């Protein structure tokens, strides 16, 4: 049950060889085709010839999300736009999304790594896969879609939401695989119980869950309530989308498709690479992608890598479930949200003080976001009609920028603690660790 035995079970020396060759070729390409990287390398006194293999990876400059924003929308593309066949984007800060582009070959690579992911989870061509990740600019839906077709499974492209329809099709179409966010899986389990549907009425066997952090407790709960095996997958649009790494049936960490995405763990303070087995920030270099190749992308996800043998037979390096972030990004219902986004919306509106507090919770297995805003001084109208209009306006602006439902609550002046240094802006009640 291994999709690409040659690469997934490759010996370490040979993998190092493959990665080195691909890295050298990629650096050459990126240096000549992307002005941003050429400048960055020149600033470090580097030429493509200085990179002879993965031992030289640490010499290369990092890439951050801010770099992608600064080069919005196509500044980091390494091919002419005529070669691009697909654009995806992640929700943006202050209305500016992070844009990623794929060539036809990139779509092929993406399908390949997602097919590996699915096979890792025991999926084959006899399966019906219900894809309840959102289709559209988000990479989740279409990424899973192309990989499933490549594998040969029957795709049910229902996209996210519409819970009753999800349940009906799951039962009537005999879906064997469910792909969605883990919190939506629990929400579906709840809706099932309310509708009197039991796992016995369904053919579900495996769930492929990602796009948000989840705990081992959640895994056990999903596995018990849906009577399935719950597999964790990891991906981010900047690298490719889903398909970066995935658990196998052993559930002992996520195998990274390292022949395409070379992982490193760095120390968050010194930015120096750490030896395998140390916890730190995960960094990826894409060595095969054409449209948007990326050097040492700082994911901000904290994890540990492992290279001991996995009983499944794959030799691909494994990463632990991500346990935190090295920045303040929140993942709410699979959507990436930075507190600074909230602040800039409030500043931009200019109708309240930019003092806010985000309350993140998980109610009935769905993430909720409540934004507390202080009414104060010249902004405080004593007419309820005006306060309600203000609440509605803030909610509307937040929802259209962030792309998720927000509850806005007006609070008294100084409810939100002031702080000299880093203000406490977020209360996350979800207990992710």
């Amino acid at each position, binding site marked *: 049950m291994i999709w690409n035995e040659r690469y997934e079970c490759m010996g370490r020396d040979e993998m190092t060889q493959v990665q080195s060759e691909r890295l050298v070729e990629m650096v050459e390409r990126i240096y000549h085709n992307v002005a941003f990287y050429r400048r960055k390398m020149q600033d470090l006194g580097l030429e493509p010839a200085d990179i002879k293999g993965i031992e030289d990876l640490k010499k290369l400059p990092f890439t951050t999300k801010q770099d992608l924003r600064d080069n919005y929308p196509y500044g980091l593309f390494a091919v002419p736009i005529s070669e691009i066949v697909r654009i995806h984007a992640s929700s943006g800060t202050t209305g500016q999304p992070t844009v990623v582009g794929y060539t036809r070959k990139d779509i092929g690579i993406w399908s390949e790594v997602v097919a590996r992911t699915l096979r890792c989870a025991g999926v084959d061509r006899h399966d019906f896969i219900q894809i309840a990740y959102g289709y559209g600019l988000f990479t989740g839906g279409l990424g899973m879609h192309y990989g499933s077709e490549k594998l040969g499974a029957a795709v049910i492209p229902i996209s996210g939401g519409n819970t009753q329809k999800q349940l009906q099709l799951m039962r009537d179409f005999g879906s064997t695989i469910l792909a969605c966010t883990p919190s939506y899986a629990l929400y579906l389990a709840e809706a099932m119980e309310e509708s009197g549907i039991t796992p016995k009425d369904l053919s579900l066997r495996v769930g492929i869950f990602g796009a948000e952090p989840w705990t081992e407790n959640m895994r056990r709960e999903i596995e018990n309530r849906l009577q399935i095996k719950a597999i964790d997958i990891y991906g981010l649009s900047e690298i490719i989308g889903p398909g970066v790494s995935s658990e196998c049936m052993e559930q002992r960490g996520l195998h990274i498709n390292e022949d395409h995405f070379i992982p490193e763990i760095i120390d968050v303070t010194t930015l120096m690479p750490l030896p395998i087995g140390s916890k730190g920030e995960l960094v990826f270099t894409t060595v095969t992608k054409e449209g948007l190749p990326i050097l040492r992308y700082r994911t901000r996800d904290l994890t540990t890598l492992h290279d001991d043998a996995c009983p499944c037979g794959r030799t691909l390096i494994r990463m632990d479930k991500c346990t935190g972030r090295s920045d303040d990004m929140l993942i709410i219902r699979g959507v990436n949200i930075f507190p600074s986004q909230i602040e800039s919306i409030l500043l931009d509106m200019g109708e309240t003080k930019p003092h806010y507090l985000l309350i993140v919770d998980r109610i009935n297995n769905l993430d909720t976001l409540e934004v507390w805003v202080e*009414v104060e001084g010249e902004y*405080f109208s*004593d007419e309820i009609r005006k306060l*309600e209009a203000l609440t509605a306006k803030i909610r509307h602006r937040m929802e259209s920028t962030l792309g998720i439902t927000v509850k806005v609550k*007006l*609070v008294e*002046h100084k*409810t939100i603690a002031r702080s000299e240094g880093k203000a406490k802006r977020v209360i996350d009640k979800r207990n992710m660790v």
Partner: protein
Amino acid sequence: MIIKQLSVFLENTAGRLTEVSETLGAHNINMSAFSLADTSEYGILRVIVSDPLSAVECLKEKGFSVSLTDVICLVVPHTPGALSKALRILSDHEISIEYMYAFAVNERASVVIRTDEAEKAVEALQQHKMELMKADDIVF
């Protein structure tokens, strides 16, 4: 004729109203009239006080969200139909009322009215010889 009304934003938590009245009391500020508007999430206290500026200051110090709002205070006879005459004048002048609260003692009734066009309302009511209270008239 325009009176500064004290408005206080209150979260729906126990004891907040008590704190407001205690703070005002401690600063020797008297309340002549007030109303409390409530929603599911918060309330708004609107008060006519003896010293609006000091009231704002001492409540702000206690961390309350406060503001001053222009209102007018109309006096009408405590008889059937008296208020309707005044309201007719305002509606004929297309002055809309945001909120109002009233109290009647013996022969007179006082009505606090909030409108976006306080000056215009004062003018219209005075034209029709309606009685309005000045801030100083309010007996504390």
